């Protein structure tokens, strides 16, 4: 069965510092991979997605992620964090036919120090 692991429950970074959130997945075939962000009291917003092709994917709000098949990872990065980036981030893998169903990790809560 597909699964997603986000090893870090909480991460705190200083404003302006770089960020990397880790995601490891378990999936037998070529995965469809996603990163979502959830602000307090809100639904999930899609940051970026990987289906195939270039393993470095650009998303909204200055985020990017790199797919590494050999490590079964899809880590999210941002070169300079802003206070408004404080939120919870979820990695997900598409399962089922055409990735119609999503399996989520437990999330990483990002805190930003000023």
């Amino acid at each position, binding site marked *: 069965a597909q699964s997603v692991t986000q090893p870090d429950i909480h991460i705190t970074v200083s404003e302006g510092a770089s960020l990397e959130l880790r995601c490891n997945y378990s999936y037998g075939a070529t995965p469809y991979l*996603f990163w979502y962000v959830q602000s307090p009291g809100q639904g*999930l917003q*899609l940051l970026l997605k990987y289906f195939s092709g270039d393993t470095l994917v650009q998303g909204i709000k200055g985020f990017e992620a790199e797919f590494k098949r050999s490590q079964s990872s899809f880590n999210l990065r941002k070169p300079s964090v802003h206070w408004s980036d404080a939120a919870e981030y979820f990695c997900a893998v598409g399962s089922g*036919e055409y990735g*119609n169903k999503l399996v989520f990790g437990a999330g990483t809560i990002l805190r930003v120090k000023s």
Partner: protein
Amino acid sequence: EADIYQTPRYLVIGTGKKITLECSQTMGHDKMYWYQQDPGMELHLIHYSYGVNSTEKGDLSSESTVSRIRTEHFPLTLESARPSHTSQYLCASSNSPYEQYFGPGTRLTVT
């Protein structure tokens, strides 16, 4: 503006009451989903629909039921609410095979 809506946003209700959580989308999407999310935990798929009159149970067993009579509407019903149903419920929709759009969620508390 195309969007996905959930009402109510917050609901506190007593044990044994029947409740319906509403989800509507104006994007014309065929596929709709309900997820349950507990604090600090991953989202779990509890119901999904690939179109009108199509509903399936998700990976997490749930005592709730859903219906899909209209493309834009996907309500979730609990016939008799219990404290174990306290959670956040997120609705999503999709038209492409890969990308789901989420509503703001309903935070349910059963006392």
